[in-house]
């Protein structure tokens, strides 16, 4: 019964979204009264989709296997958390989650739109409803999550064991929130193009949404990377897989958008480019979610291999993205540019940032799609893998990281590069010194390592330069400097912290690539191995069973250089329902480094054990967390805090009209 209720709610949401899209996009000039209706419709869509989603969650929780989706992807013995996360561990359910987040953002936009001009509200919510109608329709007509089974099976087919992990509970919702959040930027871009209203106020409305989505995407990608790292069992954390690239491209484009919207907000320049980026970012998000399910990319046989479904997805993407770019081509020449500036200026630096980020997006996109196109056009099959991306992406990021610390030190309009250089020289010297010192101590043979270290330190320390400059640290009494630091706007702090986070990630990547050590060996209980100064002794081997799996478990004692001991358990599990094996690596953290231990296959009379020491690997994810935290800090800045500035601006806008 509740299933049918959910199904009905989703149908109703689809109908309301369709009507709302039609109304909003055609009658947008009708003003406040339509805006009120649009807002209500947006909230209603959210409530209805939430009902639909909860109906499916309920069926999973109570193990109602008359729901085909639950029967195929759930199991009554699963822990509760995995029953819930199992809802989106499959194509239909993940579509439903996608639509849920889409309408959530629509409802949030409606809630915070009271201060928007009504025509903008109508257009934004209209576009948002159009997206909802498209994807709710797609879910209903090609990927119905509410299909029933009769007779209902007694037990479910279970969720893929690799997905039975806390990672599945967190990673997809975060990633989807990031992808879908950019839909608001897209809707704002559409609204600007249709209405012709594009000014600094527009950028000020869009930036918090961009920031919010960017935070989610940053966390989602970092979480996914860490999940792959500990779950896949060999300690890789980034693979340049098409699916990863698909999530990384919107992140790069979103990062560029954050910076270009800044120029637009402060200086009323880069308008057309910012609109373009907003469209591109969401288009890449759509590609991220859907290209991998269309069956084009080889990496997705498991999720949606039904060819009609793939065709529908491609058609929808073509219409939405194509329509958006058509509108852009028609309307953007009419948008007036403003805000003059010299090449050496904050604007100039941000344009440089955009140039490199946009090129990186293009390079990753070409690298991801090139093998497909080449195969389709000439029948030649090639692979484009990690070595290509590492080289191309690295070559593009190096100059970006090199100029990054200058950016925040340059003044708007016209800046003095020499003065900025003087302020940075101390930090540069420190970075050079540390890079040389560490390279010497680490005994590196790879020539790129010192350069990587240098860039990492340079970006991390350079981020501090603006704080030092603004607080006049060292030139006035310390207490006065500290008072100044505390009084700095949060936007300054968040810039510095975010850039420092990037530096930390770079350092982590360089360190683990250069100094990772590995040992593959055979051990019997009672024997000992040594890696990177750690003594690893294999204590005992045991077979055990969990809630829905049986496992071979190896118990290890690790003795550090200081004599401290840690007890680790590495498992090889076999999940009962599907008979599928997984590896549960044992990971021990020492400071920022980790010891990664995998129990390999049993040989005749012994066990294969793989050990890795991963120095400073945690910096990679800590850097990402720091970046996301900086984003959150910037959202609390006075400038974007809701209420004060908006109200003032609205009256100004009202006066104009």
């Amino acid at each position: 019964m509740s299933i049918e209720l959910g199904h009905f709610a989703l149908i109703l949401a689809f109908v309301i979204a369709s009507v709302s899209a039609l109304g909003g996009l055609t009658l947008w000039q009708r003003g406040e009264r339509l805006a009120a209706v649009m807002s209500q419709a947006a909230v209603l869509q959210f409530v209805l989709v939430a009902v639909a989603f909860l109906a499916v969650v309920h069926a999973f929780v109570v193990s109602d296997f008359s729901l085909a989706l639950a029967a195929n992807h759930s199991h009554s013995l699963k822990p509760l958390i995995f029953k819930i996360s199992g809802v989106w561990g499959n194509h239909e359910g993940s579509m439903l989650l996608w639509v849920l987040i889409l309408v959530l953002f629509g409802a949030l936009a409606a809630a915070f739109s009271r201060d928007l001009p009504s025509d903008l509200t109508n257009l934004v919510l209209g576009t948002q409803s159009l997206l909802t109608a498209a994807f709710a329709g797609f879910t209903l007509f090609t990927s119905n999550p509410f299909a029933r089974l009769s007779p209902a099976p007694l037990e479910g087919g279970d969720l893929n064991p690799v997905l039975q992990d806390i990672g599945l509970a967190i990673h997809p919702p975060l990633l989807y929130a990031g992808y879908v959040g950019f839909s608001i930027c897209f809707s704002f871009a559409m609204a600007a193009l249709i209405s012709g209203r594009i000014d600094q106020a527009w950028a000020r409305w869009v930036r918090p949404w961009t920031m919010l989505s960017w935070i989610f995407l940053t966390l989602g990608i970092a979480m996914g990377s860490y999940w792959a790292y500990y779950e896949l069992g060999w300690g890789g954390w980034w693979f340049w897989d098409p699916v990863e690239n698909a999530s990384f491209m919107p992140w790069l484009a979103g990062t560029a958008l954050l910076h270009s919207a800044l120029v637009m907000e402060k200086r009323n320049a880069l308008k057309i480019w910012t609109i373009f980026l907003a469209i591109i970012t969401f288009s890449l998000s759509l590609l991220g979610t859907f290209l991998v399910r269309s069956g084009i990319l080889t990496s997705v046989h498991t999720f949606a291999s039904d060819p009609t479904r793939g065709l529908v997805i491609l058609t929808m993407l073509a219409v939405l993205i194509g329509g958006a770019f058509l509108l852009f081509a028609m309307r953007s020449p009419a948008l007036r540019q403003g805000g003059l500036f010299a090449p050496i200026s904050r604007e100039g630096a941000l344009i440089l940032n955009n140039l490199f980020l946009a090129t990186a997006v293009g390079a990753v996109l070409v690298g991801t799609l090139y093998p497909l196109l080449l195969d389709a056009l000439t029948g030649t099959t090639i692979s484009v893998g990690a070595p290509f991306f590492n080289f191309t992406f690295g070559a593009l990021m190096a100059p970006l990281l090199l100029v990054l610390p200058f950016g925040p030190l340059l003044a708007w309009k016209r800046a003095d590069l020499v003065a900025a250089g003087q302020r940075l020289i101390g930090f540069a010297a420190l970075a050079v010194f540390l890079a040389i010192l560490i390279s010497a101590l680490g005994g590196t043979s790879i020539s790129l390592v010192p350069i990587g270290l240098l860039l990492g330190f340079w970006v991390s320390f350079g981020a501090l330069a603006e704080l030092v400059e603004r607080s006049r640290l060292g030139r006035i009494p310390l207490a006065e400097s500290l008072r100044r630091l505390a009084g700095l706007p949060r936007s300054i702090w968040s810039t510095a912290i975010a850039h420092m986070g990037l530096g930390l990630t770079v350092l982590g990547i360089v360190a683990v690539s250069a100094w990772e050590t590995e040992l593959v060996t055979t051990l019997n209980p009672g024997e000992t191995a040594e890696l990177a100064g750690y003594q690893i002794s294999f204590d005992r081997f045991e077979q055990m069973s969990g809630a829905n799996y049986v496992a071979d478990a190896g118990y290890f004692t690790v003795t550090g250089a200081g004599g401290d001991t840690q007890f680790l358990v590495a498992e090889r599990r076999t999940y009962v329902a599907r008979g599928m094996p997984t590896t549960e690596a044992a990971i021990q953290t020492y400071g920022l480094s980790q010891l990664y231990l995998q129990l390999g296959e049993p040989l005749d009379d012994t066990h294969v054990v793989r050990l890795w020491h991963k120095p400073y690997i945690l910096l990679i994810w800590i850097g990402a967390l720091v970046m996301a935290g900086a984003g959150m800090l910037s959202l609390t800045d006075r400038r974007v805090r809701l209420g004060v500035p908006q109200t003032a601006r609205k009256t100004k806008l009202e006066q104009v009209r």
Partner: protein
Amino acid sequence: MIFRLLLVCLWLSLSSVANAVGPDEILPDPALEQRARDISAGLRCLVCQNQSIDDSDADLARDLRILVRERLVAGDSNAEVEQFVVDRYGEYVLLNPRLGAHTILLWAAAPLLLIVGLVAILLAPRRTITPHADGLTPAETEALDALKRDRN
């Protein structure tokens, strides 16, 4: 990433349980072994998705790893080993595509984009300087004339 994980499962379940580089494969000469690892990292496991044979658990990857080591022990250079594998399995096996007529666009994409972007930036400011640099609009001229008339 979920899809990737799913896929990993798929081939895990297809291939009998074997794992990445096993202790029995490792060559006694560390220099040779390091070369084998470097080569392996650039060779694709043909039955997996976008994974090098160095990381892969599949049986085929194991066979390839052993093949690479056999060639190295036989005295081949890195390039010769790579060519040997390419001759056998096609260029698809290389994770880093070779520069050639068919990949020129791939390799040129990033530099081309960068150059196009730079040129666009260098040309753009001239286009955007002061929208009304060349005088007043007709409406403004008319309004100005009207003002002048009023004062007269």
